[in-house]
Structures are given as C-alpha cells and as structure tokens.
C-alpha cells in the first residue's frame, strides 16, 4: 500500500516537472505573441478583479493600523472613553481616508491641468510582483483603455514612477524606475547635462552623465530628457542624494532619491499621449 503511494507520488512529481520544464522551454523560445505569453496576459486580466477586491479590503486595514500606531500617547484616554472613541475613530479613519483620496485626486487633476497638451489616464494599483527580484506593480488599466507598452507612468504629483512593460485588455504591468532592468534618458534640470538613469534595486537609482566633468551638486533636480522617445521630456524623477568619487572606469556614481513614493503607490497616471516613439534604452551595459 505504502509502496504504491510512493510510486504514485513519484509519477506525479515527474509529470509536474515535465509540464514545468515544457512551459519554461516554450516560454523562453516563443515571442511576445506566443501562446504562453498570451495565456499569461489573459490570466492577469482574469485574476485582476479578485486582486482589486482584496486591495479594497487591505488598504483601509493598513490605514487603520497606521492610525492606531500614532495614537500611542492617547491610550489612557482611549480606555476611559473607549466606546465613544471607537465610534469617533471609525469616523475619523473614514474621513482621513476620504481626505487623502481627495488630495490625491486633486493633485492628479492639478497635474493634468498643467499638462493640458498631454493625455493622462488615472489608474489604481491593484497588485505587485510576487517575488523579491523585480520592482513591478500591476495597474487596473490595459490596452482597452488606450494603454500601450513602454508608456511612462507617473505618481499623482507627476513624478516618474516607471514604464508599462506588459499590457492586457484591462491590466498592465509597470516596471518601476528602481528595477535593475529599467532605464530612462535623463538630465540635470539646472544645467541641462544629459545622461541616463538606471535602477539599482532596493529603491536606489543611479545617474550616469555623458559629460563626466559636468557640474553636479547634491539636491540637483533630475528630469527626463526625452531621449529614446519612450517618455516625454521634463518629468521630474528625483534629486541627487550622493555623489561619489571617480571610479576606475572614470564614471561618477551619482545616486538619485526618487520623488515618487514608490513603496506607497495607490493611484498612478499613465501618459497615454504623447505616445512612445521608440523602445527603452538598455539598462545593462
């Protein structure tokens, strides 16, 4: 009995391994339009309503926990007036949530007003990548809403967040500017010195200037240059945080702090127009 169960388990393992191997092989050999790639995009679409539902539940919970953490000093008073306080806190949380939501939408509206010549599409962040190796977010708009691959994505204040790398009918995958695969043409706003920003992982971005003798100072604002055609020029990316000495390859290590709050993204703006006119610049040398 035990032997037959062991045999059955081993057969099952072999079958599952073969299926996995086949999937990996076909996926890595087929192009973007291949059947497994299409299946992957289709599934993202199918799963997104579930994710949206969970996010709706999780967000107020998180906000509630954050709020509670701030209320440490009022513990005694809270105990005394627990019932009344609980009710008021609930109302306060709801108001706070609505106020933040209102602020976000107002920021988005202000930014959209300042960019009247652009077409911007607001989207909810509905998920993130499952592993620790990629900095991506899933958003609730897709090609049915006018989104295309390589479109730039901004936060509610118009700071660069990343670019669309995958697109399904109703969802898209956004590669964040901190991901190692992400790069954008950039320049220093103060003197126009051009270069390239590259994600370094762990929330860090590096700026590589074309002119190694260029004048650069801490707190200098870095904006997109429009080079490569995937992103319009003039979008703020971040400020210079660190400038290291010349390295062995004569380049300088310039570290940028992103202006967008990438760890707390809830809503974003996709730059639908101007549309990307080229492919992204390679992030790796």
């Amino acid at each position: 009995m035990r032997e037959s169960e062991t045999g059955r388990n081993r057969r099952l393992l072999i079958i599952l391994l073969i299926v996995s191997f086949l999937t990996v092989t076909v996926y890595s050999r087929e192009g973007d339009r291949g059947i497994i790639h299409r299946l992957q995009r289709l599934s993202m679409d199918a799963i997104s309503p579930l994710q949206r539902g969970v996010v709706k539940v999780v967000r107020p919970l998180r906000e509630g926990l954050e709020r509670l953490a701030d209320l440490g000093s009022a513990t005694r008073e809270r105990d005394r007036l627990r019932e009344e306080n609980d009710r008021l806190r609930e109302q306060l949380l709801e108001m706070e949530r609505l106020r933040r939501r209102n602020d976000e939408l107002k920021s988005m509206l202000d930014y959209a007003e300042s960019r009247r010549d652009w077409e911007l599409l607001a989207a909810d962040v509905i998920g993130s990548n499952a592993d620790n190796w990629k900095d991506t977010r899933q958003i609730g708009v897709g090609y049915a809403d006018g989104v295309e691959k390589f479109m730039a994505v901004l936060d509610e204040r118009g700071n660069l967040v990343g670019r669309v790398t995958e697109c399904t009918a109703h969802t898209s995958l956004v590669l964040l500017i901190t991901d190692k695969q992400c790069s954008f043409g950039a320049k220093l706003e103060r003197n126009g010195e051009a270069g390239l920003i590259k994600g370094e992982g762990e929330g860090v971005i590096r700026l590589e200037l074309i002119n190694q003798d260029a004048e650069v100072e801490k707190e200098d604002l870095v904006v997109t240059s429009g080079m490569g055609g995937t992103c319009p020029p003039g979008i703020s990316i971040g400020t210079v945080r660190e400038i290291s000495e010349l390295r062995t390859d004569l380049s300088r290590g310039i570290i940028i702090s992103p202006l967008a709050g990438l760890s707390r993204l809830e809503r974003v703006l996709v730059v639908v127009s101007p549309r990307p006119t080229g492919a992204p610049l390679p992030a790796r040398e």
Partner: protein
Amino acid sequence: MHRRLAFIALLVVSFLVQTTLASEISIAGIKPDFILVVTVCLAVFEGPGRGAVFGFWGGFLEDMVSSAVMGVSSLSKVIVGYLAGELKNRMVSASVLLPALAVLLFSVLNELLKFLAWAAIGWDGRPAFRFSVIAGMALYNALVTVGIYPLVRRLVEREEEVTLFK
C-alpha cells in the same frame, strides 16, 4: 470534494495575500513568500504528492502575474512541495520551530532553484544574485510560519474530521 475545495481556497487565498498584502508588510524591501510557506506547511501534513501539486499551482499562479519566465516558480515549488512532503510523519514534535526551520531551508532551496533555471535558459532579465536577499526572505518566511503553520494544521485536522464523520 470538500477537501479539494479547501485545497483550492487555500491556494487562492495564499496567492491573493502574496500579490496584495505581502508588499505592504515588506521589511527593508524584502517580503515573505506566503505561497512557499503554505506549500511547505501543507506538504508536511499531506505528503509529497499533494505538496508537489500545491507547489505547482502556487508557482503557476505566481508566474501568471510576474514578468519573469513562466514555469520557473512552478518548477521550483514542485520540488520544494515534494521534498517538504517527505517530512510527513517524520516531524514528531508538535512545536512550530521544526516547520519554521524547514521553511527557512526550503526558502533558500526555492530561490537557488529559480536562479539555476534562469541561468540554464540564459534569461536576459534575470536579477543579480544576492544571497543577503535570499537569507532575509528565508528568515522572514520562517517568522511568518509561526503564524501560518497552526492555521494550516487546524484546517487539515478539520478536514480530516469532516472526512471521518461523513
């Protein structure tokens, strides 16, 4: 039938928690792998067959919303689920420390398998190998196991009772 539904529900919940809640509780950019933790916890009770099947589907769902190569997470989690299932009846202690230790080791194995697979197919988008991230995640997974293992145990035992009294 009841058991199969519970299995599917556990799978879907793990996946949703992984893709929505995990990033909210990340520490220093590292988030726990709930799917792996549940795979190992379930496999310890259910054996290698169910462990491998759960790992396969968990990895499959994970790959669905990832920009990585489809099939790699399934592959690594099938192996992890099967090996963890081999621990069935071998964990004599009711303590949560042994499963947490198992999760710690299987987390490292899972990530190493993924990197091996990415390297084997020469995937251009593969991230730089950093053992510190793997170690951090393994520790976080072990910590999360302390909360998840009793829940999975309760679920499995409840399902066994239902099957027994049917």
